[in-house]
């Protein structure tokens, strides 16, 4: 049996990120939530994740910068970006920068779960 999917959720919206983490946990995902890029970088120093769910717009260290640093440390880990914008352009731009996929706020939990599983599988296959 496959291990639980390990997902790090990064978003400056505390209420959002912790609620989302809880919902993922209900669905059997090993989800950890942090509220800044800096905290995300610290979290990946402490343990390994299969997928990083990363908000593009955050104060301080932005999502794309955080992704670059994560990729620099572990190029196998897949990143899914969260974008609040109305078009797929930011997500597509993020994918060109190395993201696996993107989701738009408000997030549809089933879509997210599908994308997380695909990304997690990609990460594990890469390792």
């Amino acid at each position: 049996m496959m291990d639980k999917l390990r997902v790090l959720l990064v978003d400056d919206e505390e209420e959002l990120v912790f609620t989302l983490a809880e919902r993922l946990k209900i669905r059997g995902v090993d989800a950890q939530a942090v509220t800044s890029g800096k905290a995300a970088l610290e979290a990946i120093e402490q343990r390994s994740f299969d997928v990083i769910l990363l908000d593009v717009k955050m104060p301080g260290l932005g999502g794309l910068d955080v992704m670059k640093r994560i990729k620099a440390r572990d190029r196998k880990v897949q990143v899914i970006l969260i974008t609040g914008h109305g078009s797929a352009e930011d997500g597509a731009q993020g994918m060109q920068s190395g993201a696996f996929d993107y989701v738009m706020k408000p997030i549809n939990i089933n879509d997210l779960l599908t994308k997380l599983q695909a990304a997690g599988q990609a990460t594990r296959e890469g390792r």
Partner: protein
Amino acid sequence: MILGDFKLPGFLGAKSEESGDGTEASLPYRRLWKTSVILTALVSLVPLIFMTVINIFQYQRALTAEMEHPTTLLLSNNKRSLEFFIAERLSALRLVVRTHTADQLCDQQNLERVFRNVNDSFSGFVDLGLITADGTQCSYVGPYRLQGKNYHDADWFHEVTARGEYVSDVFMGYRDVPHFAIAVRHEDAAGRLIVLRATVGADLLAQYAISLDLKPTSDAFIVNSRGILQTPSRSHGEFLKKATVPVPPYRSESQVTEQVDTDGRRYMLGYAYIDRSPFVLMVVKRPEDILGKWLTLRGDLLGFLAVSAVLILIVILWSSTAMVNQLKEADKKRAQILHNIEYTSKMASIGRLAAGVAHEINNPLAIINEKAGLLTDLVEMSGEFPRRGEVLEIVRSIEKSVERCSTITHRLLGFAKRMDLRTESIRLEELLKEVLGFLGKEANYRNITVEFHVQEGVPAIESDRGQLQQVFLNIINNAFAAVQDGGRVDLFVERAGDHEVAVKIQDNGHGISKENLKHIFEPFFTTKKEYGTGLGLSITYGIVEKLGGRIEVESEVGRGTTFTVRLPVPATKF
């Protein structure tokens, strides 16, 4: 031909509230046109008129002088001849009295002999008589019985005795033939005073007037100092009656003056006082004679002035109209560009504001969504409890509302962030559906039928999504405004030629009049009165042009309107 194609420019047209011409916007151009026409006409025509008037006066003066000179010369010659004629006859009489004694001349036979000799040498004498100091005519040769007649109380007798010689006015004698008298006084060696008197036929005088060789409309005659005609006149009075022209004051030389008759007509009057006589030789020339050539020349000059003025005015009108039209077009283009810039800037500000607001709303919306989702999860995990179904229903309702809000914020964000030109591949059918998403509610409320007619194989175009959204939003919005509730709007997407696709937006609304159709893309032109800014279609036009496309409109009042937007397609797409 320039004049054939000439049309009254729009800014000079009749007033119309909707046409845009004749309105306040056209007033500065009309004023500019008027000023330009007036100033140019003044600068061109005033010197021309001034020069023509000067020329007219100069020519008139030159021609008048040219006419005066020969008249003066002719008068002088005739004056000299007439003076010589009179002096010659006075001298003949004087010679007779100096070479004969009073007794000799009182002798009838002697006087007859003298008369014959004198008449042989100097023609024109009709009779001859010798009058003694007491006024008695002691001898007489002539056709009358005047011997013994006493002239002591006659005026002429006193005058001749006082002045030494005398020339009378012309008078009709007993024979009813006009003639005049001449007389000389003499004192012989014994101191006896005698007067020799003769009469001369007046027809000789008339010959001096006739010899002035005049045109039929002119006249020449002799008057005495009181203006009584001494010879017949063609048109200035009866013989021996007062002439109808005034007698000018005495001048020793011949004169030519300009006079005005009782009818206000000008004429030339030449005159010469004949010395040692009461006679004044006169010539009258009418303007037709004087100014015959001049009138022709003046007609030519005035004709030239009129033709030149008309040509100058045509050129001025044409050039001023063309200049003001160009200026107006340039101003219109500048206004369009300024409006585009202003509108784009305004839209960019609104876009940034909308993006900010949407982004800020989107995050709490996402939280509500997740909280509702978590609530659903928890309820589903909790098993049965009272009113569980109701709770799940409420949570799903919250999730649906979140989804609706989410759709709105996504559209706002998508619409707002594309203010700059960004080219991307666009399928027009999809783009039109996005635009209709904004107007879907209105279509539902007003029961407007919107139908798509998409031709197969229409390629995607490379263009700016945001700008095109703006274009179609404006046009479809206008179509919705034009139709009644329950109306119909058809959207056609089809190929148009080799390198274009066409989007037609056809409504069955009230239509647009032909007059309004001409101005529909002009800035600030609106038929929506206070509800419209008049910028929507002008911006739309500007955007379509900027995107390399064209926009056309056809309309029929009462039947509807069709806007066609043609957009370029890269050659590789076909």
